[in-house]
């Protein structure tokens, strides 16, 4: 029935081929225009697992505490001493400029120039105090000396002023929505503004500007992602050379490349049509689409060329190739698509976007490379170069196929299978040690020596602050902070959690209230306690404004901030486990200690979501591949023979991650699904040729040999093309693209090897000849 349908389809398409090609051309024009409108897009919210319980807590209190989307600008004086007129002028300008950049929450811009930065000191008859920068401030030596004294009294060294007085900090919270347009904040444009209006305007020989924060990082990632264009050109070039070596024909080189590029254009255009932008994370998709397109294109030109050599006209050969490849090619591409769609099950926006854009891209290859390509080829006139004698190359190829075919004999099959099992268990043992999350310091998306990470290291080196902050949200009833009973619990919680390896320091309303209370008692450290009487307690709490982020308006919510030494997965896990254990003991009707906010809170949730998604994702991918294979082969044995090598390779890829210190993260999680979805193609192409022969009773070795002669070179070629396309990422400015590149290259090459070595061995066992 299926055959009839395909034949009918072929007749229709090839009769109306001019029309069909015309329609494709028009569609390409339309989608090309759409693609040109595509924007880079990196929203903070897309990176987090919104339904995770931590993120629910985060979102619930985001309005009060700003959450995790902040920006820090450290202004450094290269002389090592900030107390000079030029520096203070610049710092003031940076503060003002940041204040006016749209998207900045103006009430939360903090530096020594903000009026809320005050000092207090104890004098004989009480307190004296004022803003750190006095109203009559001038950049004279006296003025600077006063500020210097005030800075020390205000206790802001380490936070707003570098520990060695070589820099000062301006920090701000970002809004999720642009107040002028009401649209979500354009993070990348915002980052560009930071770059131009802060660093561009104010960085000189004497003053250096260090900027960190999610928005800046997203901007730098987007910039790095643009460098990918070059890699794309390189990938196209190498692929073109390879296709030419394979086809020995200019026209057969150009056509599959053009069709594959068309698929890329369609994919990008469709993104705009459905209202998506291109996230730096999904920038790998065009590569994949191109590479997958080329590999299917090569199968196509290979099929056409063989038929032309056999004496058919180009048109008849193209039609026949179309007929032959539509089903296996379609199934292979469909399984790719399904593989990607399974990623939708993961509750992280950018992974879902990746899933959608990748499935779109692979879906369109069915049209461009399985339908359009043979149609276009049919317009050409290929020369039949049939040598009477096989060329040296053909002889060499045949020798290779003969050698590979041995894997389909029981003797070699056993060796291969034993070796595979051994490899699997070694791999499994390594795979089990795979780490979750980001393993490096700084921004994991970027290399350690990127400007952003150098800025991060500057700030963490010179200030006592860190971006690796997790906030535990304490939820209580309104006015809870006026009760000693409540605050003492928060104090106890803070202290117990503080005693966890990986936590450098902590702060909460309770610990600050103790310091304020000492302040009210002549700065005597012996009064650094929470007063038992409500009146004294309120007096202390009253000094702490809600802008401190330590309490909300009615002090029913009081975060405990945990400053961590890094954000490595192990550190996060240790701290999260401790918080959970202490919270479990201390939670009661009045107070609940809830995870989590702050950048590390988000990471903790992401790590957990990624770890939790891994197994279901694998199950879905393999489930989908299994069902599709079952449908196309109608054979359980064939299906298992395709899936086992894939599974072994997935495990080995995880082992590789352990070996290379690549953590399972948002960027690497999809790789295995992609690898499996695409890796299954090889097996499908080879086994689809074999299976009809096998069911006709042909011995496995012969069937495999014939499959190799027909498709072997295309399969090996495909593996190499795909691998080359993604291996260029190894040189990416983005660390995560490098990781993805390494893993995908591995998956593509090793899956190919699995299909030509392990698969025949399994076939030899499954279809054993009755003796």
């Amino acid at each position: 029935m299926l055959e009839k349908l395909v034949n009918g389809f072929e007749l229709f398409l090839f009769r109306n081929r001019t029309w069909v090609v015309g329609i494709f051309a028009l569609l390409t024009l339309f989608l090309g225009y759409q693609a040109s409108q595509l924007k880079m897009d990196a929203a903070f919210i897309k990176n987090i697992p919104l339904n995770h319980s931590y993120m629910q807590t985060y979102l619930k209190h985001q309005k009060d505490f700003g959450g995790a989307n902040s920006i820090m600008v450290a202004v450094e004086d290269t002389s090592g001493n900030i107390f000079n007129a030029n520096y203070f002028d610049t710092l003031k300008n940076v503060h003002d400029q940041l204040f006016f950049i749209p998207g900045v929450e103006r009430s939360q811009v903090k530096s020594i120039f903000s009026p809320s930065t005050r000092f207090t000191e104890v004098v004989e008859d009480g307190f004296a105090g004022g803003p750190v920068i006095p109203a009559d401030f001038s950049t004279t030596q006296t003025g600077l000396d006063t500020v210097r004294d005030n800075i020390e009294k205000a206790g802001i060294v380490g936070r707003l002023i570098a520990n060695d007085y070589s820099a000062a900090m301006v920090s701000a919270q970002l809004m999720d929505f642009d107040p002028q347009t009401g649209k979500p904040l354009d993070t990348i444009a915002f980052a560009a503004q930071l770059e131009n209006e802060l660093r561009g305007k104010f960085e000189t020989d004497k003053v250096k500007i260090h900027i960190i924060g999610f928005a800046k990082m997203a901007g730098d990632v987007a910039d790095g992602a643009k460098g990918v264009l070059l890699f794309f050109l390189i990938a196209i070039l190498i692929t073109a050379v390879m296709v030419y070596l394979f086809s020995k024909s200019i026209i057969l080189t150009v056509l599959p490349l053009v069709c594959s590029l068309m698929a890329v254009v369609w994919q990008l255009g469709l993104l705009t049509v459905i209202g998506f932008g291109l996230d730096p994370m999904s920038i790998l998709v065009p590569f994949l689409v191109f590479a997958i397109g080329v590999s299917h294109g090569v199968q196509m030109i290979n099929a056409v060329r063989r038929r032309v050599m056999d004496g058919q006209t180009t048109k008849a050969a193209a039609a026949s190739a179309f007929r032959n490849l539509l089903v296996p090619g379609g199934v292979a591409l469909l399984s790719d698509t399904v593989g990607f769609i399974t990623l939708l099950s993961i509750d992280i926006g950018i992974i879902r976007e990746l899933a959608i854009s990748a499935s779109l891209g692979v879906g369109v290859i069915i049209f461009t490379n399985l339908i359009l390509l043979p149609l276009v080829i049919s317009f050409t006139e290929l020369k039949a170069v049939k040598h009477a004698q096989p060329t040296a190359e053909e002889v060499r190829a045949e020798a290779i196929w003969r050698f590979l075919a041995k894997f389909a004999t029981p003797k070699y099959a056993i060796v291969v299978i034993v070796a595979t099992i051994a490899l699997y268990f070694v791999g499994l043992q390594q795979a089990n040690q795979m780490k979750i999350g980001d393993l490096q310091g700084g921004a994991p998306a970027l290399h350690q020596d990127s400007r952003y990470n150098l800025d991060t290291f500057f700030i963490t080196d010179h200030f006592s602050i860190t971006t690796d902050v997790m906030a535990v949200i304490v939820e209580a009833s309104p006015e809870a902070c006026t009760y000693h009973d409540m605050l003492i619990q928060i104090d106890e919680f803070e202290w117990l959690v503080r005693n966890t390896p990986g936590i450098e320091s902590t702060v909460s309303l309770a610990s600050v209230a103790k310091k304020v209370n000492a302040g009210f008692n002549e700065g005597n450290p012996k009064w650094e306690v929470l007063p038992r009487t409500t009146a004294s307690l309120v007096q202390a709490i009253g000094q702490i404004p809600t802008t401190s982020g330590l309490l909300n308006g009615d002090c029913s919510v009081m975060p405990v901030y945990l400053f961590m030494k890094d954000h490595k997965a192990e550190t996060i896990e240790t701290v999260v486990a401790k918080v959970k254990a202490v919270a479990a003991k201390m939670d009661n009707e009045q107070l609940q200690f809830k995870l989590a906010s702050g950048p590390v809170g988000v990471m903790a949730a992401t790590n957990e979501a990624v770890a939790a998604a891994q197994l279901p994702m694998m199950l879905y991918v393999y489930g989908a591949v299994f069902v599709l294979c079952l449908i196309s082969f109608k054979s359980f044995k064939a299906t298992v023979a395709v899936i086992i090598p894939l599974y072994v390779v997935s495990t080995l890829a995880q082992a590789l991650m352990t070996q290379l210190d690549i953590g399972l993260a948002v960027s690497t999680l999809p790789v295995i699904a992609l690898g499996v979805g695409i890796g299954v193609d090889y097996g499908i192409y080879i086994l689809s040729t074999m299976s009809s022969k096998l069911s006709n009773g042909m011995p496995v070795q012969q069937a495999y040999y014939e499959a190799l002669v027909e498709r072997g070179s295309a399969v090996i070629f495909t593996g190499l093309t795909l691998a080359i396309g993604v291996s260029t990422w190894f040189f990416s400015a983005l660390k995560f693209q490098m990781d993805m590149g390494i893993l995908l290259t591995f998956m593509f090459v090793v899956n190919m090897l699995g299909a030509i070595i392990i698969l025949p061995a399994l076939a030899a066992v499954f279809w054993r000849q009755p003796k």
Partner: protein
Amino acid sequence: MSFRILHCVAALSISCLFISPSFSATSEAPSSQIQPLAISSLILDIADTGQRLVAVGERGHVLVYDGNWQQVTTPTSVQLTKVFFINETLGWAVGHDATILHTQDGGQTWQLQMQSREIEKPFLDILFLNEREGMAIGAYGLFYRTNDGGANWSAEFHEELLVEEDVSYLAELKGSDEAAYLNERASLLPHFNRIIALKDGRLVLVGELGLVAASNDKGITFTRTGFDYDGSMFNAIEMQDAVYVMGLRGNIFKADLSLSQWHEIEMPVQSSINGVMAMSDETLYLVGNAGVVIQLNSDDTSSIVTRRQGENLVSIAKDNQGNMWLSGSQGLFILKP
């Protein structure tokens, strides 16, 4: 308005005074917890037992030093402000919630001798004249005495240290409203910050609002000395026939043993001085807020030894290897020479 008045207001809600020595070693007060960071938590005093150092601090923390610091458990989690040893084995520590702890094994194990949440005042110092007679002093003139090594503690009210107008105010109140009288009495005296015994047996008591008083009768009665500075004094020490008192904003005064003429010593800092130790017969080391360590010589010259940014220093002590230990908001550490 000064903080002083605010505290009086706060104290009005207290309805107790003269808590009898019978107190409840309350079940509501949990014991201290052993935690790895206790050594870097707020440590308020270090005492030398002659054999080892014993340090006390926030959350009921007590640490014992025998070559390295080891935290020991105590039956309280309130902040401990001061620790005192009369010999190598017998010692007392005091703290908030009018807490007094006692050890009989050089600081390894501690028993509660007194604790009262209701008093709501901290003890700030403790002094024993011998194994039996001792006194614990604290905020708002808190004063408890024992004559049996701490088995029983009884309150004393040092009316003689009230300022004149308060005396008449109290007398007036006593006639009209007994409850209000008791309330007021509980908060009119200045904080008693430190009490030391001079070589000749006299006691010197220093405290809030320029309190510097002496006693010839083991602290039964005190007489204010001719000290006329209004700021609080946090510590006192005797060296070479002179008595030094020190406190708020780097103020330090010196008098001869008559204690009648105090003169101010010029200091290189304006930070409050919390702790003091005699380095030799001629040198004092002072520690205080803003991380200052100051050397003060008997000829009244002084110099900054070090300044540890962002922390307050409270106490200084020497171990038997000659290391100088500092304590404060960042815990315990050795003063690098």
